[in-house]
């Protein structure tokens, strides 16, 4: 049981390039989330999903896209990378079941540098 896994661990992008951050969970969780963490700041929600085929915007969605074709995977797409997207990105999941555990389980993070 690996929990939440993220790839890559670290990436350098040039301005204007695009990339996909991968996130997979093996806990059969319905809810998945993407956060970004800027230096000295807390985590901010980018997008979230309450189940396969359902996604919604969080606090800071601009410049990002997501999809949720399966329960396990929740990739985050950056189109036209900008220096402002330099950050550490965390994926998380939780069961979302009524009466179920509410803990969000986090991945190890992806450090992204846009130059």
């Amino acid at each position, binding site marked *: 049981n690996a929990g939440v896994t993220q790839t890559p661990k670290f990436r350098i992008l040039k301005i204007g390039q695009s990339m996909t951050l991968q996130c997979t969970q093996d806990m059969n969780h319905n*809810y998945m989330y993407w956060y970004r963490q800027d230096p000295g*700041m807390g*985590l901010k929600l980018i997008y979230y999903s309450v189940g396969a085929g359902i996604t919604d915007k969080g606090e800071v969605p601009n410049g990002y896209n997501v999809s949720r074709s399966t329960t396990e995977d929740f990739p985050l797409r950056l189109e036209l990378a900008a220096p402002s997207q330099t950050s550490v990105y965390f994926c998380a999941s*939780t069961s979302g079941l009524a009466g179920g555990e509410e*803990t*969000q389980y986090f991945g190890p993070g992806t450090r992204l540098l846009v130059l």
Partner: protein
Amino acid sequence: AQRVTQPEKLLSVFKGAPVELKCNYSYSGSPELFWYVQYSRQRLQLLLRHISRESIKGFTADLNKGETSFHLKKPFAQEEDSAMYYCALKWGAQKLVFGQGTRLTINP
């Protein structure tokens, strides 16, 4: 709008001393609060939640609705408590809003 404030970015105490990490929140609904911790080279993980009223690793936190606070306390700090601590508020569809975090350093 919902907001979580951790007024101290850095907190340094000596081993054996009491620790209190402050957290204040702003939320119009019934609050559900959590403390998450990130130890060096480890991923963010849940430390405790106010609903369960449990003590984890000697830490406790009481929800004070009058003061809109959820401070994290430990009577005797240990070196292994050094970490980054985040207070978080649950809202909406199991969404969390996080405070800025407090880096706790326990000096020997």
